[in-house]
């Protein structure tokens, strides 16, 4: 059984359906990608999974138990950790204290009150070292660059040793080398037996690191599979490009007639290659994305 199961989740805001009968899963030891055009409902899904947003319908199962009505902090205690697309670092604290406070919270308020000693500085510094931001340890968290703050959020999660990591656009703000290192880190974390579910716009990273990818469009999962499978999927290409190259008896005609090429929903570049619309691994970062 997968560690995390999202089962027919529906989220409505007034008349808008942000998530529509979404079903997907994330398994331990694997990196799972959640991709889709802007406004597809990815972050809302994360909010539902982590407990910040109550779904209108549907269920979330984690570690064999239904957690749909379990409050945020209890889900965390059961082994969920997440990072945020819009940063939520503790700006008034130093980078080191950000992780330290997470470790303290993990041990519980009562443990802290009893004064069993603060979390070991060595452990905290090792975490900072691991995500590669040890150089910033004494900086205030609201003064560090965006990419570093995202890594800080990851380190903060890891302080709680979570079974499931929910990463919301973790690599934005990182340069190319940093992104490569980050990919290696994700593989390592998965190899430790954690499930990683990641919303990400950097297709190089997604295609290179993920074992499985779910594609979300208009709040529903339109495709799931390995990077290869997803890349060739007609529905995915349609979601990203506005038309599917498969039914291109006269692609240019179809494209220009019903879906103009400068369609606002185009996140991926239109490539001339018929079979592979998504760029091959290593072709460089894609423009667009949620900025």
């Amino acid at each position, binding site marked *: 059984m997968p560690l995390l199961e999202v089962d027919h989740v529906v989220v409505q805001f007034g008349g808008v359906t942000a998530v529509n009968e979404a079903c997907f899963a994330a398994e331990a030891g694997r990196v799972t990608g959640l991709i889709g055009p802007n406004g597809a409902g990815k972050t809302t899904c994360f909010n539902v999974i*982590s*407990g*910040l*947003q109550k779904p209108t319908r549907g269920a979330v199962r984690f570690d064999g138990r239904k957690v749909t009505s379990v*409050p*945020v*902090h*209890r889900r*965390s*205690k059961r082994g969920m*950790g*997440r990072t*945020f697309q*819009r940063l*939520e*670092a*503790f*700006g*008034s*604290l*130093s980078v080191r204290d*950000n992780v*330290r*406070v*997470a470790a*303290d*919270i*993990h041990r519980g*308020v009562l443990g*802290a*009150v009893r004064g069993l000693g*603060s979390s070991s500085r060595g452990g905290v510094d090792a975490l900072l070292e691991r995500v590669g931001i040890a*150089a*910033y340890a*004494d*900086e*205030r*968290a*609201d*003064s560090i*660059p965006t*990419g570093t703050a995202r890594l800080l*959020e990851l380190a*903060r*999660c890891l*302080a*709680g040793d979570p079974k499931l990591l929910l990463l919301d*656009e973790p*690599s934005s*703000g*990182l*340069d190319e080398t940093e992104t490569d290192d980050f990919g290696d880190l994700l593989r390592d974390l998965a190899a430790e037996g954690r499930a990683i579910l990641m919303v990400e*716009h*950097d297709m190089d*990273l997604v295609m290179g690191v993920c074992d499985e990818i779910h594609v979300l469009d208009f709040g529903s999962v339109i495709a799931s599979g390995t990077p290869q499978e997803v890349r060739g999927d007609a529905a995915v290409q349609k979601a990203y490009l506005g038309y599917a190259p498969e039914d291109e008896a006269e692609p240019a005609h179809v494209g220009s007639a019903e879906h103009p090429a400068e369609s606002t929903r185009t996140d991926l570049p239109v490539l001339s290659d018929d079979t592979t619309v998504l760029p091959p691994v290593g072709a460089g*970062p*894609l*423009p667009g*994305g949620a*900025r």
Partner: protein
Amino acid sequence: MSSFLAFTLFGLFSGAAYAIAASGLVLTYSTTRVFNIAHGALGMVMSFVFWDFSVRQGMPLWLALFLVLFVVAPGVGWFIQRFVTRGLGEGPVSVSLVVTVGLLVGCIGLATQIWPPEPRSVQPFFPGSDVELFGIFVTAHQIITIALSGVVAVGLYVLLNRTRIGTAMRASVDNPELLKLFGGKPEQVAALSWAVGTSLAALAGVLLVSTVGLDYYALTLLVINAYAAAMLGRLKSLPLTFLGAMSLGLITSYASGYLPTDGLLNSVRNVVPALFLFVVIVAMPQAQLRIGQVKGIVSAPQPSLFRALGWGGALLLGVAFLATAFGESKLLLLGTAATYAMVMLSLVLLTGYGGHVSLAQLTFAGVGALAYVKLEQANLVGLALSALIAAGVGALVALPVIRLTGLYLALSTLAFGVIMEKMVFQAEFAFGFNGTLGAERLSVLGVTIGSTAAYVWVMALFFVLMGLALLWLRRGTLGRMLIALRDSPAACGTLGLDARWFRVGLFGLSAGMAGLAGALYAGLRGSVGAAEFQYFNSLPLLLLAVVFGVTSVTGAALGGVGLMLLPVFQSSNPSAAGLIFAVIGFGAVALGRDPNGLANQLFKLGRLLDRRFGTKVRARIPVLPAPGEAQRRMHAEAEANAGAEPSLTSVGLHADGSVDVPLIADPSREVGAHAAPRG
């Protein structure tokens, strides 16, 4: 039967006036996210202006009304939005609360200064033209008020739903940034809604003034009724707000008509709006954690334990010196200052560290004092029990609103303050109305501290101990959690912190500190009464705490002295009594955005002096800590205060304390900072 009709009519009349006030409150809050606690105070000032125009200057009624409603009030509203509350909506709620409380106190001060207390009366509209309806007399004024509330309702509906700017107003509720992208002007929308909102406050004030009387406080606090009504509509829905206002008007009217005139139920009559507010807030559904938080707040530097001990010792020496020099009356003042300073310490914990605002901190002090008196245990056990009882009461206040956000917590403390004062403090089983209760001086280990001088010194000792405990807490695990929770509740939740219980604990601890101060105060004075813990005085207390710096122990000490000096200054300059409140209020308006307050300016001055002369002085006096010590300490300070100053380890600190600007500090950081976000 006819009396029932009369009460119904009166209820509808006051409900209509509340509805007008409340709709203005909803309008300003929903478009700018700034909850204007001074809404009623603005209505009060406008009623005075109306009196000034119509009675003192003898203008025709219609002209005075026109000028107030369509010139002065909108102008003031526009001015406030433009220069006072602009941009507060995106900041922490504690800041906008403090600023508008400052506005409230400032308005009262201004009104007292311009229109000194003297009997004034405002006639109802068309006096004498009463109509008999179903056997009861209906005044023209009442009919006009009820009709005007209908006009306001329709007018607001048309404004919001049928005009372009109204659509922009509704859009700005959801997302001002998006509105800007689509060519709307959120600033214009905000200014308009404040102009209209203030005008509505003025209208409500003018309509109510003939019934309530031209009084600084009565009209200001009528705003609690408006809050209560607006809360029913969750500060969003205008129809529900009208419903809330009408029900509140009716309930209040029936309560005053049918409740018994003695016993506990009699006191309920005075607190119906506050009870209504409390019930509505408690019944509100769970608030969602807000994501996309404001970033870190620059806090005052944390002194090292060494330095804190030094200053604490110096303070105790100073107080010991003053205690021997002062006479009895000055000693009592010094003790009062120590009391206020301790209550402000409780705000340092709650507001400065925790980011929550309490508008009833003096009430908790009153609970502590009452417990101390009633326990009749004038020793450390009794003192500790008094503090515990106050802490328990504080936790109980926070418990029902545990699920809600900071604004509602603050408002429910205001309601709590009103309820406690009218129903408990003034009741026969407590202090009694205008009554006092005797209290004994504290005895420590069997030795009664009889002399006032010694007692005041013991109070200063308690202040120092509490301050040290607070600093210790701030530096430790719990302090870090407090700051983390203030910076991002959502992140704390996903890390596994149950913010709700943590908040209840914080509130209880803070109330306990205030209660301890109150208990010590009771022992100092020997007799205490309800008048010393009036809930209204919690507001200047909060303001002075913020003005002097609510993030530091030093700020609390200075603020305590400042608050003690207020009545002294007032009694020596009776003509400037209002001016002082105006200065404090508007001072808080100006300084409220920086919770570090004046104390932080002092710290900066101290660092400047240290930089200039520190090395020389230290070189001459070898006993003082070496530069290395100073460096270590400054490092700790910089950690807490590094908003502007980057960390010193990577930047480089010179022995004289000057800091390199990090232009060329760390190449890797340069790269990181300039890496363009992508993906």
